[in-house]
């Protein structure tokens, strides 16, 4: 009976322009100035984060740096530091955990916090959120927008409705008043393609979706049709998964914007090998194996192609992932200069349940070799051992995440075969 009286409210804390705000907090002279966080500003790349001061100039995350420079030449261009942002994110999670054990990180700059108890109401949760917002500002000098609601959907959409430094609390009725008149694409979970299909059915607003006939939704969108309608009513029973319970990963990938447009096969294969190695290392360190490999390529016209191939077996072997990735590149690349390459492993399973112990000695040897490499990297760091094929490009690959290779110059072997 007592349990039935318990009530739950959810907070979604969304750090405003997180990476740029961290740089402004750590370097006070940047406060109030337009700040663009990117890769190496002297190289070509994209905007990773844009502070609120730079947004009126039309600069947004994902935009090519060249375009950002044209729009806002006087901005401060700061090289991003993923380690720093992850560390600050973990410090914030510690702070949230002082409020409640139910903390679910949603991304590096967003987290859900569940508040539960008989006395928890929307106003009391909003008061907790206000105090948390103040503490984040005082302790870390970072702006955050917080949404409060009875479920994750409402908390998430409330947080996005007023930024930066917003605090919005909504119950289901307030959610409907706020979002029903808005475009259906504003609903969390409705992307551009889904929105286009909805519009073709005469569903333009969130309110239209809430009143759409069930059979129409079911026929058009299958099992998610009724779920989308529930969402339009502000109903969501998605559980909050505290991070100590862990969530199974669905895919793991790495990608890199190349330092310049590149059609050099040797360089592209070297980059692909390095990316395959990073993906396989991550699979092994988190205890996964994969049976689908995909390659992402982006050309000068920003056309992006993703091609994938299922494997006959589960793997965490960088050589196999690289071979498949290279095959996909060969089949799908027309030889035009590329600006981005990516490798992704999906179809994941936990390694202990998926890999059948091989009877073949050669495979055992390979697995032992990988374990030895992992032990060396665990002890001495990620770049203590890297595939020889990517070393031929060590200077050029220094921009690859986690790939700060030795600065000791090597002879240029650009056209060597980057075999794993």
């Amino acid at each position, binding site marked *: 009976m007592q349990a039935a009286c318990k009530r739950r409210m959810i907070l979604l804390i969304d750090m405003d322009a997180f990476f740029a705000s*961290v740089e402004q*907090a*750590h*370097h*006070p*002279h940047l406060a109030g100035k337009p700040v663009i966080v990117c890769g190496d500003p002297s190289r070509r790349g994209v905007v990773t984060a844009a502070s609120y001061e730079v947004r009126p100039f039309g600069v947004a995350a994902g935009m090519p740096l060249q375009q950002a420079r044209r729009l806002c030449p006087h901005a401060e261009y700061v090289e991003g530091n993923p*380690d720093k942002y992850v*560390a600050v994110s973990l410090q914030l999670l510690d702070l949230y955990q002082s409020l409640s054990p139910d903390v679910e990180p949603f991304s590096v700059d967003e987290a859900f916090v569940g508040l539960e108890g008989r006395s928890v109401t929307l106003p009391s949760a909003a008061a907790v959120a206000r105090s948390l917002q103040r503490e984040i500002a005082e302790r870390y000098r970072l702006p955050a927008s917080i949404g409060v609601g009875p479920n994750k959907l409402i908390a998430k959409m409330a947080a996005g409705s007023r930024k930066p430094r917003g605090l919005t609390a909504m119950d289901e009725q307030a959610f409907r008043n706020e979002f029903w008149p808005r475009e259906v694409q504003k609903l969390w979970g409705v992307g551009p393609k889904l929105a286009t299909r909805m519009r073709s059915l005469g569903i333009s607003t969130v309110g239209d979706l809430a009143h759409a006939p069930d059979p129409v939704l079911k026929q058009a969108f299958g099992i998610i049709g009724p779920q989308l309608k529930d969402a339009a009513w502000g109903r969501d029973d998605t559980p909050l998964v505290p991070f100590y319970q862990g969530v199974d990963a669905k895919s793991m990938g790495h990608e890199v914007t190349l330092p310049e447009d590149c059609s050099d096969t040797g360089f592209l294969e070297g980059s692909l090998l390095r990316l395959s190695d990073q993906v396989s290392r991550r699979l092994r360190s988190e205890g996964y194996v994969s049976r689908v490999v995909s390659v992402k390529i982006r050309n000068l016209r920003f056309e992006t192609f993703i091609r994938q191939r299922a494997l006959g077996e589960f793997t965490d072997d960088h050589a196999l992932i690289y071979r498949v990735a290279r095959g996909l590149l060969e089949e799908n690349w027309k030889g035009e200069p590329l600006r981005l390459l990516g490798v992704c492993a999906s179809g994941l399973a936990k390694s202990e349940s998926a890999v059948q112990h091989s009877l073949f000695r050669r495979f055992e040897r390979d697995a032992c070799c990988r374990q030895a490499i992992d032990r060396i990297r*665990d*002890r001495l760091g990620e770049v203590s051992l890297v595939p020889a094929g990517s070393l031929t490009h060590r200077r050029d690959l220094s921009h690859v995440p986690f790939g700060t290779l030795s600065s000791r110059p090597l002879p240029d072997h650009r056209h060597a075969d980057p075999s794993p």
Partner: protein
Amino acid sequence: MFESINDPVDMLTSFVDGRVEPLRFQWRGRVIRVRKITGRWSRRDGQSLLRYFSVEGSGSGTYELCFDPRVPRWILSRAWTE
């Protein structure tokens, strides 16, 4: 603008309550007093934990410093100067 430095620097350091903190360092012949630590984070590299600090210096600059326990030594990784 920001400048990548990655120079080893001589540092006067305090160790209080198990925490290491930079107090002042010498760079390009100048002694720079740490006025304020504006951020701290760490990065694991193999078994070693590298500790990073962003600080405001006694002049108008801000700096990012790293304590590498393997050597051990302090490195000025980045500086912003007018």
